């Protein structure tokens, strides 16, 4: 785990700042101009089996590693009301026993070859992923196939996983970030699937039974509703033959998706303060409904959000609230675009005494980007970051697989990767302003704060009526 933990070390230990300080140094400015680096994709080959399973092979021979990832195009969004966590339980149980192997046997076999085999759910998909050394591929593939095609969903394993997830849910209340997110989504989405913790809660998990899990699996796990990527040190034609042998007999079927009613947008400010009497710092989440992935203004919105708060070191929120005011270590804005409209959210944390100031400045920045065109240089910076860094999203086989699956999941089109940078380049400051106008709404927001009530409440009352909740 040492090497794996390294990246996490770096990501979490992030300690950098950024701001859009003008262009005092023309030499450095001009460095951004010029020809863009070519996107260098490894050889990619596709084949669709007779049962509809699309297989994509990504060839990369630098290291003797082979990875497999199956994406099933249904996820927590398909959890029925009151059953939050169903997709997560179904996916999680795949590796917990098959018709011929117990959970322990699967764990023993995978660990013995030093590989990883994991399964889980996302809002729009369930994923099963395997990664291991080439010399152990036969064992890995056998297990990968078995957990996908023959899961047992044994009662004892259902109970065990349910208990773990309830425990995990309850203990997540110790984490201010989890707590603020849970309440933010609940207030924003109500009974819509996005209003619930995707892994389930202590209320919903006890109500999920075996027939529902089996049904979820039967309804959505179909070759015609899935994409399989094999990547690494492989020969594509050989792989297609081997994988067809494993998955060719998987039965095609009609997959039916339920209708989901759209949530009502929030009116005015809906403010919740979750009291943690011993908190030295407040966690803040605020926002409103955002966009779906098919939104035609996706690129305009993305560039706008980069300048507002998505661009890390270069964003206005980071520049103001962190670098200039010193109120936080991190602030970020995000449009979570899913098949259905996900949230627009701004999250930060600051000492209890400065919660009001941080929120106020955030609103200022939202209003400013709605009111005035961003500077031509700001847009140029956002574009040159997005386009300049784009080739780096395809460095490792895992990254390439992730990008290709994203194109598949959201039907972005075969030319998406090739056309990406032209689409970024075409966005104008007027389009950015129009996107801010249409998709930001600083007057109608959900605001959730997890912090010390006595120190925070008066600051929040400045924005409107405050509902207070004690942690149970």
């Amino acid at each position, binding site marked *: 785990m040492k090497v794996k933990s*390294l990246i996490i070390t770096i990501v979490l230990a992030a300690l950098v700042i950024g701001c859009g300080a003008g262009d005092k140094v023309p030499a450095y400015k001009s460095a951004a101009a010029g020809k863009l680096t*070519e996107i260098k994709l490894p050889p990619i080959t596709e084949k669709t089996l007779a049962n509809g399973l699309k297989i994509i092979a990504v060839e990369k021979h630098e290291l003797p590693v082979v990875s497999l990832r199956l994406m099933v195009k249904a996820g927590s969004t398909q959890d029925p009301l009151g059953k939050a966590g169903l997709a997560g339980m179904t996916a999680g149980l795949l590796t917990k026993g098959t018709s011929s192997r117990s959970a322990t046997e699967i764990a023993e076999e995978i660990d013995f070859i030093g590989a990883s085999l994991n399964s889980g759910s996302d809002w729009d998909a369930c994923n099963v992923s395997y990664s291991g050394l080439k010399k152990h591929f036969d064992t890995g593939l056998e297990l990968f196939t078995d957990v996908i095609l023959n899961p047992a969903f044994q009662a004892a394993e259902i109970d065990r996983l349910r208990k773990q997830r309830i425990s995990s849910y309850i203990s997540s209340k110790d984490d201010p970030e989890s707590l603020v997110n849970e309440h933010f989504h609940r207030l924003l989405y109500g009974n819509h699937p996005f209003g619930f913790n995707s892994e389930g809660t202590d209320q919903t998990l006890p109500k999920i039974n075996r027939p529902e899990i089996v049904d979820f699996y039967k309804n959505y796990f179909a070759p015609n509703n899935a994409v399989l990527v094999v990547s690494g040190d492989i020969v594509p034609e050989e792989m297609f033959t081997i994988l067809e042998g494993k998955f060719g007999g998987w039965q095609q079927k009609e997959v039916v998706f339920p209708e989901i009613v759209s949530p009502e947008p929030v009116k005015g400010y809906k403010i919740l303060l979750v009291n943690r009497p011993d908190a030295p710092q407040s966690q803040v989440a605020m926002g409103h409904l955002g966009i779906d992935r098919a939104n035609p203004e996706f690129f305009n919105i993305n560039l706008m959000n980069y300048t507002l708060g998505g661009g890390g070191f270069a964003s206005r929120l980071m520049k103001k609230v962190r670098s200039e005011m010193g109120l936080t270590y991190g602030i970020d804005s995000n449009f979570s675009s899913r098949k259905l409209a996900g949230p627009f959210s701004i999250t930060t944390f600051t000492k209890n005494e400065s919660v009001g100031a941080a929120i106020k400045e955030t609103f200022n920045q939202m209003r400013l980007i709605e009111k005035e065109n961003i500077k031509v240089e700001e847009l140029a910076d956002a574009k040159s970051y997005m386009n300049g860094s784009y080739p780096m999203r395809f460095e490792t086989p895992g990254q390439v697989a992730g990008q290709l699956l994203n194109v598949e999941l959201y039907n972005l089109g075969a030319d998406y990767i090739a056309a990406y940078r032209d689409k970024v380049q075409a966005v104008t400051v007027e389009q950015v302003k129009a996107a801010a106008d249409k998709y930001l709404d600083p007057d109608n927001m959900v605001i959730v704060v997890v912090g010390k009530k006595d120190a925070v409440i008066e600051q929040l009352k400045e924005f409107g009526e405050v509902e207070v909740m004690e942690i149970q």
Partner: protein
Amino acid sequence: MKRFYLPLILAVLVCFAFIQAQDSTKVSIPAEFASWDVQQHELANGMKILTLEDHSAPVVSFQMWTHTGSRNERPGITGISHLFEHMMFKGSKKFGAEEHANIVQRNGGNLNAFTTEDITVYFENIVPDKLELIISLEAERLANLNISDSTLASEREVVKEERRYRVENDNFGMVYEQLHSTAYTAHPYQWSVVGWMSDLDAITVEDCREYHRIHYAPNNVTVVIVGDFNTAEALKLMEKYYGKISAQETPAPVSTVEPPQNGERVSYVKKQAQMPLLLAGYHVPDFKADDYYILQVLQKILSDGRSSRLYKKLVYEEQVALYAGGGLTDTENPGLFYLYMGVNPGGEMDKSKKMLFAEIDRFAKEEVSDKELQKARNQLEADLIMGMQSNMRKGMNLGDYQVRGGDYKLLFAAAEKYQKVTKEDIMRVAKEYMNEDNRTVVILVPEKEM
């Protein structure tokens, strides 16, 4: 993946990866890396450079490693290494505050920095034709950093927020800090990398300037470049931009040695919480000791994967813990073999604790099985290879051995040593280090009402 959240947090606070061997001359490079052409270079001012070309993707990872971290601090200025890392983004002679980061992003690069007990690292990942820009920017802030009262004032507040976020408002962070402040009585590892709040308030501009002069001198810095670039050209650029920076005196060595622990230390944190936590640590030798490799193999058997002893017993079979595991702090001076456990809310800490320590005691009482030993070796082999999938990770692994161990080849020596560990070795180190008298235990006791 929530289950793995604690071990990952540990990895953050802790130093990372690998260990060094003492004898680097007889290293055989594993076949997977036989084609790697790692080269070592040195400028006249003492700056070391490590290069590895890899043209498979149009990406270069540039990493500037300074051999300084919280172990180089003293009471009164704890946290200065990390605070200083922040100050490196606050402007130089040529550039204003945050301009360095802004220029890198404008050119399509990703950048960041991190500080551990032993090192501070600044890195950029960027497309190949921007390498000169990056070298010029990094050399500029190394040579001409501008530390002012106003930038220190605002950044001090940012770092205090970071401390609240990582330690004071995070149950695990609090317990982790307390483990170190209890297990260590003399050595600088007793304070956390982020430092004590009162010291963060007290550090002055002069402290920062002096810290920069000594610890950020070229003779204390190693640059690692991995990816799609030409070595000869890069070396010319390194000479052009870094060559003129003057060397300084060698930083004072860390001479304090932690005295032996002669009895268990137990400490409690009471906090509003749902989940009782336990963190324990045993003093173990430094990363150059032969026993360290053996402890790493033991760690794999104890807690890597769902078939590991702790997961199987405490999480799967007995279901007393939501998670349980162990690891090594991987520090340059003697570190800790730590254990962590999150007890299911409503569960009994005492019962879970007994089960946890019973699993540890087993290593001293009975030999591990042949299968477990082979599994651990296979896992360590796979970790090494699968941990090299990007230029950044290659650079981080090589750089860590180079900077903390003095020779990147020790990365491969470690791989060889793991394969030689025996069942008897494991039993011996378990007896020697993983005993009650050498143990510090910190328990978070949930208080529902405050």
